[in-house]
């Protein structure tokens, strides 16, 4: 256990624990776009910056990558930090003007318009992606499917499947849509196919329950779960969770699960 100071108050932290995590735990507000507790820190959005005043390299740094050591002292809302944060939000407003979360976050810091916002043509595609990389990192680090990544460099960077072609590696888990802070990723299920429109219309076949005939999770996702999370016995493999539930509550008898093939 080490003691660190945030905004002149002391808190306990595990040695090496990231300051942003400590702050979130203690209810101290530090905004962030690219941070997720389950993923390695990325340091890209820069919103979580704080000022180190003691116990480490002095100056402005991202709290998501700042490891707690005994005696570390940071300030989360100095004039400089706030000025930089507001500047960043102006940049985000220009980059993702159609994202409600960005508008809300910016408004929280008093930014309602951006000096860099361009006049957009009618019917222009909605701009919401802030390149926080959460979708890329969750797919590569947490899920391990590696469907998408950053393509290109600098301001031309985009996220997509390789060569902007539909991916055959996608397991349809929807983790990417789940972690996206700005609702960029569109996934629709229709007639037995899960379409991830945003990733070049990647399509994943949905599994059908052999008992009730309704579609359930995507086939590759189910296989992945069985492989990595919990191995279900044979008779439950092709049965949807609802039907499994009905067995548990006795509405179905185990003989219903015998395969009729």
């Amino acid at each position, binding site marked *: 256990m080490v003691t660190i100071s945030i905004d002149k108050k002391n808190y306990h932290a595990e040695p090496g624990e990231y300051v942003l995590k400590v702050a979130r735990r203690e209810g101290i507000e530090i905004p962030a776009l690219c941070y997720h507790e389950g993923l390695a820190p990325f*340091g890209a959005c820069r919103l979580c910056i704080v000022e180190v005043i003691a116990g480490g390299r002095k100056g402005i740094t991202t709290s998501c990558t700042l490891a707690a050591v005994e005696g570390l002292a940071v300030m989360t809302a100095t004039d400089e930090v706030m000025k930089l944060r507001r500047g*960043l939000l102006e940049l985000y407003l220009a980059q993702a003007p159609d994202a409600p979360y960005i508008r809300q976050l910016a408004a929280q810091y008093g930014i309602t318009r951006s000096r860099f916002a361009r006049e957009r043509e009618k019917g222009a595609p909605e701009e919401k992606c*802030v390149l926080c990389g959460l979708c890329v990192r969750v797919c590569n680090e947490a899920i391990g499917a590696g469907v998408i990544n950053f393509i290109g460099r600098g301001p031309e960077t985009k996220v997509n499947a390789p060569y902007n072609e539909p991916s055959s590696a996608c397991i349809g888990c929807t983790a990417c849509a789940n972690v996206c802070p700005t609702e960029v990723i569109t996934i629709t299920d229709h007639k037995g196919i899960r379409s991830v429109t945003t990733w070049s219309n990647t399509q994943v076949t949905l599994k059908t329950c052999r008992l009730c005939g309704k579609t359930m999770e995507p086939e590759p996702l189910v296989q992945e779960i069985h492989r990595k999370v919990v191995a279900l016995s044979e008779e439950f493999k092709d049965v949807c969770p609802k039907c499994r539930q009905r067995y548990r509550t006795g509405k179905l008898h185990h003989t219903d699960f015998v395969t009729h093939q």
Partner: protein
Amino acid sequence: MGSAVKHQTVSYLTTSKNQGLKKIFPGKPRIAVGFASCGIAAGADKVMRALEQEIKRRRLDVMLTKVGCIGYCTREPLVNVSIPGLPLVIYQHMTPEDVVPLLDAVISNKVYTYKVLCRIEQWDHITKGNVLHYGSGWPDVPRYAEVPFFSKQQKIILRNTGLINPEDIDEYIAVGGFSALHKALTTMTPEQVIDEVAAAGLRGRGGAGFPTAQKWRLARKAPGDTKYIICNADEGDPGAYMNRNEMESDPCMLLEGMIIGAYAIGAQQGIIYIREEYPLAIKRLQHAIAQVRACGFLGRNILGSGFSFDIAMVKGAGAFVCGEETALIASIEGFAGRSRPRPPFPAEKGLWGKPTNINNVETWCNIPVIVSRGGAWFSRIGTENSKGTKVLSLVGKISQAGLAEIPFGTTLKTLVYDIGGGGADGKRIKAVQTGGPSGGCIPSAYFDSPIDYESLTSLGSIMGSGGVVVVDEDTCMVDTARYFVDFTKSESCGKCTPCREGLKHMLGLLTNICNGNGNMEDLGVLEDLAQLVKKASLCGLGQSAPNPVVTTLKYFRHEYENHIKARRCHAGACAQLFVAPCENACPIHMNIPGYLTLLKEGRLAEAYAFLLQDNPLPATTGRVCHHPCQSRCRRCEVDGTVSTREIHRFIADAMLENKKELRRVSPKRLKPTGKKIAIVGAGPAGLTAAYYLAKFGHHVTVYDAYPRAGGMLTYGIPEFRLPKKIVEQEVSIIQKLGVRFIFNTKIGKDKSIAALRRENDAVFLAIGAHRESPLRIQGEDADGVLSGVEFLRDFNFGKQVALGAQTVVIGGGNVAMDAARVAKRLGSEVTILYRREKSDMPADEEEITQAEEEGIPIMTLVAPQRILVSNGRVKGITLVCMRPGDYDTAGRRVPTATEQTITLECDTVIAAIGQVCDSDFIGRSGIALHRNGTVQVDPFTLATNVPGVYAGGDVVTGPLTVSEAMGQGKQFARELDKRLMGEDRFSSLFKKITYSNDVAVEPQGGPRNLMPTVAGDIRRHTFDEVTLRYDPAVAQREVTRCLRCDVKE
């Protein structure tokens, strides 16, 4: 090449050394061609082939080899020749055509004088005990140390480059190579090696300047057995190629440094990360690595020390950001080159999570010399905080470009003027850009600053990797900032928002400003963005990318304001802001291609009307303008400038003579506005302001203390340069517009400025600079000492001037030339005395030449010490002889007094050392003046601090030229009308005249047709015009020479 002998003991090292020495001194002539990238680009490969063929054909017993680059890139291809017993001679600008005469000279033990650069009798290869003696002789050939480019350098890193064959390890060993490695591995512990590097005070040469020993200690102390060292050879700054030469010309030096470093740190594997765009460096390094391995300096149990180490090479793939260490590591690991947050730092957790030490090529290259000579020796070079030397690439608008290695503490002045030879084409240097896209621009006023880490940082720039880009008066600093931001924006990895988005928006703002669409608020936004990107970016690329913008805003804000407020780019780089380079350089922005084309089309009257749109005094300026347009004319690059000034004189003269045609050109006036303007001074500035304001429909009154209009045109410039009749004719055109002239009225005496303010809506002070600066020497009050300006004025007034038989004129400007030439015509023997060199004289080159042609000698480098007086009259003058001293920050040599004096007999001394403004009365009425008496004004509106009062011309700028004064008058008129009437009405003053925009593909018209001039010995007896008009056929030919740079599509 190179022996495959494993060097386990020093005796094997000696064997290789001897083998190498036999190659450097083969006992017969050795011809070595400089074969690095710059030499090959200049044609060294062709020279090499020609040499091969000719040597074979003649069956000469001569050794032909290749060496690297000695750094004097402007003089490539370089070839050095070593004949046994004689000095090594370096030849420059060699071509295949030089091969035969060179070989002729070589076989007769002679020097090929035509292309010789310098000789080297002995050379210190720095690592202990390695001085090579070539031989003495040929005293007429300049020594290496006498060549200005080399004389202030100190070669330590570049000690071998250009002298040894980079593809032969024996030659490297012959000049002391690997003796340091041997010393380190056999007599020193790793900690002792680090101590030596610490004692040396070596700082990283890649840009950040972090203390190297400290970095090594961190890596050494980090827990873990597997450690890596990396050489950052991703040299990406545009214009920087020091590392390239270090690798192409002396690759073993880098390898030796890395092996010693790995030993000190405890690393087993080294990686050279080299940019793919350096194919020759890659090839040479791969070859060197193979040779070093074959010698046993890489691999297992090196020199029997138990230390094992090897080096691999990884190529980059075209990303500047991979020069940043975390992105570099990501690239080696197989990921895209995107930066990672630090901490953790690479010394703790780097390549594949292991402790890693990354250093720049040049940092590693310093190691062998530090180990060989010791840290104490090294620390004696340089300054307190910046030890050792730095290789700089001196490029851009510099006369002598190349690689210069200087000890820290050398001033920018020495680098730019002594080593670099000043601006290319004699142009004035504006600034240097150091540190590449991460650095900043340092204006020439700061060139006294030493080159070291702290000094450059305190000026707002950084040392960077050593690139020094020189920019001159033709470089636009806004465009330069835009260029660098464009670079960093496209090289940004894109991971973090401030760099990716911030640089994108900064580029947008800068582009707008360069296109004339910027506004003043943009500067504040640019500054805010710069701070945001600097402070919030993830890695060094973003953190330093705004530096060029920040420094140009700090030192060159006026250029930004010019682009925004006046929509002008003085340097002539931003194409949207000017019609053509000539028009841009013209102080009154005459549309030069326009009038040239109209004359070409035979439309004389329209050409004249077209001239009058921008220039109310075309016949006058056609005679006396200093023609800055001609120095920017693109035709200069073909066969000489177009005679612009002479043509508009031709057009105006032809019209002024033809009264009938002249009457048809009736100047248009807009409706009367009821506004009243008073102009003080009927000189060029005042006349031009009056002209435009009258055309705008305002009521204009011009006051002048003299009986006639013209100012310097009438009372300064002599008749033989500008006939008074011409001035009168052109003034009458202005009078016809309804301008009221009130002569013999001195404002400040006969009428006050306050009164003018009461009676008018605006007052324009354009009284010029008519008082001569005093000489401030003994005897200046004697009879016979005259002021240049007064002398000319009295003469032009028709007064009798007390001129003796022997006159000296002191000064080097146009007033001095005019005074001298008038005195000569009045029968006196005249000598001009100037305290600097002729090339420093501010007078127009033509004036100087014409004065000399008229029999007036010019004595340079003499300064007046005392005027000798007898009975109150001048009888002589004593002069101190000056010598050109050190350079000042502007690149001019400061004249320094010597002990020697000269005394001349004379009875008249005319002082023309500079004019000042008679502005006391202006200051007394509450208008703010500068310390030198000129009036302070807003540079765009020409407004003074007193509402309603404006000023322009020499009274604001100090003594300048006729056209610059006219430019101010025109600017004042246009801006005032905008203010009074609420809109820019300038274009409504004139009828639009169109002409053809067909442009010939090839340059037409042949070489320049010069203005015919009366011979000097004839014209010096008369006051008739010196230059005669063009013949109409000649004028017609001359106008076809215009390349029509204004036609852009």
